[in-house]
């Protein structure tokens, strides 16, 4: 028996002076294997052409369609309606600038994050096109890939208590990015250099350990493990640096 789904969707278009923040309701007949991608596109085509939301790959790979689905951040494209009750409430991800309705500006947030953590390989080596590539153990390559699987959907930021309270918090995604470069031997940054970026309350010491980031990560990245490792390492670096500073003063 096909259900009639009842959607309650946050609406606000800041570019339209006549628009006010509100919740709009829509009814839609459910079809077999329906996802929120299918449902939202049908709502736009059949009921309200002004409804704004973001999809791109619609295959759970690009991270464009993060939204709050019945109170929980997740990717809309791979959320099947049959896994939801017939009342479905959709809100934009908090923690990002609103574009309109369910669409938020993750691009701006993430670009700022890359600049802050300097999300690239730091090296003094110059690439020699004639040389054989530097060797790497395959197990290490797999380990780096595990952390590189993040798709920057923003769900962990939206689900994070600290990020909601302090906008400068790097979030699990930023800390994971640092962890990714720390295990990569091609990046020549030292622990002290990493400490300068994340060794503070806006970084690794800001986390309150609520674990929502790991709970909701659609790619199931072990974010808490990374945080733990990073924290231990940074605390150790802090003590070492402190010790070094004192030694320096004595002299």
């Amino acid at each position: 028996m096909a259900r009639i789904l009842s959607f309650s969707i946050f609406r606000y278009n800041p570019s339209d002076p006549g628009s006010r923040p509100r919740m709009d309701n829509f009814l839609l007949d459910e079809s077999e294997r329906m996802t929120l991608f299918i449902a939202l596109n049908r709502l736009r085509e059949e009921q309200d052409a002004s409804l704004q939301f973001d999809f791109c790959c619609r295959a759970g790979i690009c991270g464009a369609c993060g939204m709050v689905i019945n109170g929980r951040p997740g990717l809309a494209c791979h959320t099947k309606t049959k896994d939801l009750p017939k009342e479905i409430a959709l809100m934009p991800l908090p923690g990002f600038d609103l574009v309109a309705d369910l669409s938020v500006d993750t691009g701006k947030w993430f670009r700022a994050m890359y600049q802050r953590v300097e999300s690239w390989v730091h090296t003094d080596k110059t690439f020699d096109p004639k040389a054989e590539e530097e060797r790497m153990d395959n197990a290490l390559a797999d380990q780096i890939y595990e952390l590189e699987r993040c798709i920057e959907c923003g769900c962990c930021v939206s689900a994070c208590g600290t990020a909601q309270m302090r906008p400068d918090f790097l979030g699990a995604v930023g800390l994971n990015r640092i962890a990714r470069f720390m295990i990569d031997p091609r990046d020549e940054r030292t622990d002290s250099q990493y400490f300068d970026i994340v060794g503070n309350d806006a970084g690794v010491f800001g986390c309150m350990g609520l674990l929502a980031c790991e709970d909701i990560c659609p790619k199931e990245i072990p974010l808490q493990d990374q945080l733990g490792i990073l924290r231990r390492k940074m605390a150790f670096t802090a003590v070492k640096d402190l010790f070094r500073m004192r030694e320096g003063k004595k002299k």
Partner: protein
Amino acid sequence: MQTFHTDLLCIGAGLAGERVAIAAAGAGFSAICLSIVPARRSHSAAAQGGMQAALGNCAMGDGDGPDIHFADTVKGSDWGCDQEVARLFCDSAPIVMRELAAWGVPWNRVVAGRSSYFKGGQQFEKIEKKEKEGLITARAFGGTAKWRTCYTSDGTGHTVLYAMDNKAAQLGVAVHDRTEVVSLIHDGENCLGAVARSLRDGGLSVYLAKATLIATGGFGRIYRESTNAVINDGGGLIAALDTGLVRLGNMEAVQFHPTGIVPTDILVTEGCRGDGGTLLDVNEHRFMPDYEPEKAELASRDVVSRRMTEHMRKGLGVKSPYGDHLWLDIRHLGEKHIRTKLREVDEICKYFLGVDPVRQLIPVRPTQHYSMGGVRTEISGAAYGLMGLFAAGEAACWDLHGFNRLGGNSLAETVVAGMLVGEKVVEFLKGRQVNFSTAVIEDATAKQQGRISRLIGKADGKENVFEVKNRMHDAIMKGAGIFRNGTDLAACVDELQDTLDEARKVGLSTNGRGASPELTLALKIEGMVKLALCVAFGALRRTESRGSHSREDFPERNDRDWLVRTLASWPEGADLPLLEYETATEVFEIPPGDRGYGGGKIIPMPPAAAPSAPEEPEAPEAPGEQVAPRVPNVPNVPDGPVKPVKPVEPVAAAAPNAPSAASAVSAPRRQGRLGEPAAPNPAGSSAPATAPDRAGHNAAAKGEK
């Protein structure tokens, strides 16, 4: 209105766009990438399987080299590719993989010692050499003689794009995301930049650039069922086509990937078959070896897709509410392999199908996947028709892929072409000065503002944009799929022309304020229908079967008449594209021959025209045998700026001896429509539809020099 000045403007921030921008930024030029989505959401990220490069590190790739890669690519293209381009690509690809490694891509590496692998359903053993341990390894892909596809699990595009965007951020390449180009700015000879619309607030802005690159990827979304991301609607190609000057190459060459899942059409990688997965029918019989004893599931994509369709037509498909499909079986690869090396596939099956591929079969069928066609360029990346305009990646017809591209060659192409075109763009920028005419700029922006006001005010009509899109989808799905024939294609062109009429009468149902998705689609629907017409009309004219273009009424590959590339342009006000043809390749390293898979007959080149030496074939005398001149006759000069040739005037192309497509442009519309489906090609069944007047053409080319 905000105006941005930059040396290089890249339209698109996927792998090709960012790689070219990085080349420019690395040489001290300013570069801005415009992107509909944040750079890392570009569709490059979705490429799973890998990148072909003949490194020859792994045991099954032992002895590989660019020559073998080249031969595979040419055969894969069904001799439709430009062999100079293919050679350059194959020689450069290994360097690119190493550069990407240096930039942080976690390529999978060779693990020394014994390991097992699957080919088809059977298990074999291989021994990886100790001295190769830790070097970049590779996996098998379709249509290749060696294991050559470099990969990071099945998230290759993702890791490469992340490394690329990291590099772009490091070098200060500006990415303006949520910004969509709505038109190019040009003065008839030079491309001067673009008009763009913000997908944050809907505002227009102007980007002025000395060089402009189109790198917007494929246009799969003109099909309803496509593996492509929703952003792959051909935006850059539409802007190019709207100039009336730039030519699109081989638009009828559309690839269908064998394994789109049913329903939802999401791709599962060719790596599944490369790693030993098999295709099964309704009786769970492995049928591919029956058709292709040698290559089986690992024949090229066009061949596997056709064989699958053929098999389903025999009634051996699996029935489902979403139509017939077949099964992909990777169960025998084992849990460890699937959960690590085919991890995205595992997730896609879990989330979208509720299937566990370790224990269950995956429902698949051939699905639109890749556009071999695109903005036709020189080997340097310079577009035909406008100085200062370049293209790279899937948006371009460079032309590495001819009528079928090999898996792993497109992702590699984005970065290899990005690097090579990037070098040419830098050379070009060094000598480039342009005058930006305020009149031209104001004209371009006023035109776009006018379009927007008309759409919002319903000045041209009230057609519903979504209905127009659906009508286009219906027409092209029906007429220009895997198997094609004159009757269906003629009906498809007819229907698309009616759809074009409707597209020109679209009016909004909403107020269009801000980033309005309805306005966004309305601004490009006419262009999308035009692209669909380029595909369908080009396919109708091409009365042969080559690679992915398979005509039931012309089953032979016709090297005598059709070893040519289609060039489509759209003169202002026309209802059909203007089609011209040029030789597929000026240089033959490998003369046309049998691919070794796929079957099919070949009508050979006449001996006189057959390539014995790498010289331009003489113009054949007999009517019905013609090799059209290559349009821009300017070779890639390494020490001078690249110089695309001035386009041929549509009128000149419609000279007396070019009766068919050109007349469709100048004649009234109904007459320009295709005649009887039985004889759709006025030029007869053996000759290409239109060759531009050779004399007039050369004159135009000389005039430019």
